[in-house]
């Protein structure tokens, strides 16, 4: 009986928990959006929302029924011909806020920021954001040595989603780096890995060869689809 009571309490707690927006606060968000060549992009929709984009699934499952990619929408705006956008936004009660950049010509990009850096001034002045085209990269690991060993490989590439890093309130940079780990040579056929990234960007692949040496290869991603063959 007590067990069911506890379970009921947990369920009620989960569904009654509601993150909120800060009372009595209004902030100003501003940034500039450019393409990979530094050209200002017009008509890019910028939407600021609460939470980390990594927690999308959680927020969709428990918190509410809003868009899977967004929690509470705090503010939104459209870039002008100079790529500038500035709008009023609400402030999140927790310390994590993200924003998305959406354009007809580019894949959506999400960027996470920390509220701590803006809480005192309520001015969310973000550095220039760069939108890049998406690219699908096929990596073909071809076994020419005849080894039967299974190897670990790591691919490092530029993600569509980024995080803004700060140190004591000073923005130190925006990182969009992502990594994918996988095993190669698990079967007799070649290992083919498909990775979604953006271009122009650089992709790095690290793996061990038959002698145990760490091999690092870099590829310039410059097209919507790319294929590379890596022989080991």
């Amino acid at each position: 009986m007590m067990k069911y009571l506890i379970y009921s309490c947990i369920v009620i707690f989960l569904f009654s928990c509601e993150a909120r927006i800060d009372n009595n606060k209004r902030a100003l968000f501003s940034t500039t959006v450019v393409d990979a060549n530094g050209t200002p992009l017009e008509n890019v929709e910028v939407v600021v929302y609460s939470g980390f984009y990594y927690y999308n699934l959680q927020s969709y499952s428990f918190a509410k029924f809003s868009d899977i990619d967004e929690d509470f929408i705090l503010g939104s705006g459209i870039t002008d011909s100079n790529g500038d956008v500035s709008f009023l936004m609400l402030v999140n009660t927790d310390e994590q806020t993200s924003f998305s950049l959406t354009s007809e010509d580019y894949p959506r990009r999400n960027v996470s920021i920390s509220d701590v850096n803006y809480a005192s001034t309520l001015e969310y002045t973000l550095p220039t954001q760069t939108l890049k085209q998406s690219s699908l990269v096929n990596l073909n690991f071809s076994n020419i040595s005849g080894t039967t060993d299974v190897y670990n490989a790591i691919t490092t590439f530029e993600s569509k989603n980024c995080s803004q890093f700060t140190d004591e309130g000073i923005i130190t940079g925006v990182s969009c780096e992502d990594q994918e780990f996988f095993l190669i040579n698990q079967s007799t056929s070649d290992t083919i890995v498909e990775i979604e990234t953006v271009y122009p960007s650089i992709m790095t692949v690290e793996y061990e060869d038959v002698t145990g040496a760490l091999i690092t290869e870099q590829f310039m991603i410059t097209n919507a689809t790319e294929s590379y063959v890596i022989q080991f």
Partner: protein
Amino acid sequence: MSFNSRLFIVVIILSFSNIVVAQTDTINDPENNRLRRNVTELFIQRGSPTGDNYAGNGLSGGLGFGIRTQAYLYKGLYIGAGLSNDFMKVNDMNVVGNYDRATKFNAYLFAGYDYRFTDLWHITGDIGIGYSQNKNRQTTAQGGAKFRDSGTLFRFTTSIEYEFTPAISVFASPSFEMVDYKIATAPALSNTFSNGNYFNVAIGIRISDNIASIDRLKRDIDRIEAIPEDQRGGVQRIRLKIYKKRLARRLARRN
């Protein structure tokens, strides 16, 4: 024609009709000596955000309701307390923020004067101070969040009232509210969010608890005293004492 305009015309017509009715009122009616002890009113109102501020530029008014109660200190001088709730829609998210609607809750104290200018008509005016809170809500599509904007309320209320009976009357009441919000903002926005003004027009019903008139008290005392003392019941004896005390108080107050 907007609702506010129509309500304004109704108030004007009521005001003019008062002049006509006033001529037929029986000014010498003994009940004219009646004094109010306390009044409770229930009302519905339409509030309209006004002025060059975030509320005036970004919110649109809707229907609301409220309750006020007031106690009379001396003649028409009264103090009281009021509560109200008003429902508003966001008409410009760029001005107020990303939410859909707001419910304005007011709790305040007030003091004013109730002037009876004919036997059946009153006008009142009071000033109040209290707490105001806008509970703001997003739509489900916006995330469904709730948050609050709050501040200090300053309110000026007037009303014109017609008595159906000494205990029940109806009224129309224009009022003006200024809210000094404590909203922290980015420096570029501070002037917009520091205050909000609202103009309300209410109609409602007042329930009055009156002090009996001197004439009526005298009549009641005479009626009981007409009964031989040994034939008076217990209740009648108690009533007689109460009526005499009330009469003494009323006469002292009048003098």
